[in-house]
């Protein structure tokens, strides 16, 4: 075994420039793979966090709506009572975790807070902001039921699921992680080709030795192992670097910068990056082992 490791080491020194390129290519490609995984983790984390908080808003008529919404003008007290009764009805009550009523004054206060410092806050009047029933569902994906229940109800202008806003954000993040995967696939292809070329070169440099090994009856495994080790060692180094880079990105960019810049968003932890590290190292090692074993096969043919 020691002699095999020594042979692999000698091979690595012989093709140093190729080995450096393997290290760099696996480093970059696996960084992209890891980034894609971390983005997915981030998306899931935000989904868990926000979907639970996402509510269905039942907006009541303000009297400012354009036809055909709200033909009766501003919502009346009877209509409000009817709507609340529907929320408490046998059909809807089991689906609803809780609901609360936001009147114009509260809506105005929240609006002022949210847009403080902006011009909008100065010329919006309280009665322009409608009254709203905020409904939290037991299962947030069932918002359709609420929308249907109030589609023809007098006094309701519209029903809006907040998750539709979130889905747009997630689509952007998903697109980013798909792009990362796309780049990763291309770079991984480069890595595989580079590894097989390097191993072929290495085998060519040692073809005399391989010939001697073959006629003294060395088993394929004995001949193959140093080359596979060579490929694995260079990819291992690259993937360790990639894992390290991801941990640093999560630590300095996500935890130190984003968390303070966007305090209301829940971000991935360094522990998530530490989970991804062994995954990409394992992936890199498997890929390198596979491609170098494939590359050396030509020299094992008897």
């Amino acid at each position, binding site marked *: 075994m020691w002699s095999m490791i020594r042979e692999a080491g000698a091979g690595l020194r012989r093709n140093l420039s190729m080995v450096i390129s393997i290290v760099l290519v696996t480093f970059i490609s696996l960084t992209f793979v890891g980034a894609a995984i971390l983005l997915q983790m981030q998306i899931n984390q935000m989904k868990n966090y926000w979907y639970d908080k996402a509510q269905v808003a039942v907006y009541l008529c303000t009297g400012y709506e354009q036809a055909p919404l709200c033909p009766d003008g501003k919502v009346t007290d009877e209509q409000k009572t009817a709507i609340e009764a529907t929320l408490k009805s046998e059909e809807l009550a089991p689906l609803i975790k809780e609901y609360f009523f936001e009147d114009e004054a509260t809506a105005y206060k929240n609006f002022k807070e949210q847009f403080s410092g902006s011009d909008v806050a100065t010329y919006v009047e309280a009665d322009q902001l409608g009254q709203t029933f905020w409904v939290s569902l037991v299962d947030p994906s069932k918002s359709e039921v609420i929308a249907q229940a109030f589609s023809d109800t007098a006094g309701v202008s519209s029903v809006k699921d907040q998750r539709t806003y979130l889905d747009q954000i997630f689509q952007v993040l998903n697109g980013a992680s798909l792009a990362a995967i796309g780049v990763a696939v291309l770079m991984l292809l480069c890595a595989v080709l580079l590894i097989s070329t390097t191993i072929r070169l290495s085998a060519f440099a040692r073809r005399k030795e391989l010939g*001697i*090994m073959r*006629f*003294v*009856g060395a*088993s394929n495994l004995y001949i193959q192992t140093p080359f596979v080790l060579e490929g694995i060692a260079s990819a291992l180094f690259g993937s360790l670097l990639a894992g390290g880079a991801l941990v640093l990105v999560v630590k300095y960019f996500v935890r130190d910068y984003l968390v303070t810049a966007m305090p209301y968003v829940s971000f991935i932890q360094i522990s998530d990056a530490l989970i991804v590290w062994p995954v990409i190292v394992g992936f890199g090692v498997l890929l390198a082992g596979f491609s170098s074993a494939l590359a050396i096969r030509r020299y094992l043919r008897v």
Partner: protein
Amino acid sequence: MISFSGVTKQYRGTTKPALDNVSLNVDKGEFVFLVGASGSGKSTLLRLALKEEKATVGEIFILGQDVGAISSRKVPFYRRKLGVVFQDFRLLPNKTTYQNVAFALQATGKSRGFIQEAVPDVLKLVGLTGKEARMPHELSGGEQQRVALARAVVNKPAVLLADEPTGNLDPMTSQGIMALLERINAGGTTILMATHDTMIVDRMNKRVVELSAGHIVRDDEHSTYGGI
């Protein structure tokens, strides 16, 4: 021990077969010279025996094994039972005498203890005691061939295949190598040796198989290079 029956070998892209319907039997402990002009098929016959090539037609049995039926995964294990030497010695230039011989044992997974016992023994047999630490370029041609022979027989093979082992050596040195081969043969190893060396064949007075254009044209006991 070695048996070729109706063996034809045609290399891809050639019209004339390198071996054409060759049948040959070699018994245990025999010493057989394969003679013939370049391109007569001597090397092809040895390559088939080593399973470096596959026969196009015919059957080859060596050491009781159907050579054609050995799967490529089992070939290394088959080759461990054979010893081979070549005209160009094929030593590893960056390894010492000792390491070159030990390499054959390491590559076949022998224990360190076994290697430490077997290598000095075989180096003594070929007369290289004291030159264990020399690199191949520090040895004469004859000494290099002795290293190659030591490597070939360190596994105690029942069959030794030799492809012009004296082709690169002067007559005096060749004689030394032949004496060594005779000693190995006397130990019970069957030897099949392809050669061009008239003097050696004539002096040894062993069985001679002559090939010409892929056919066996002569197979005589106790014969000479040109026949009687």
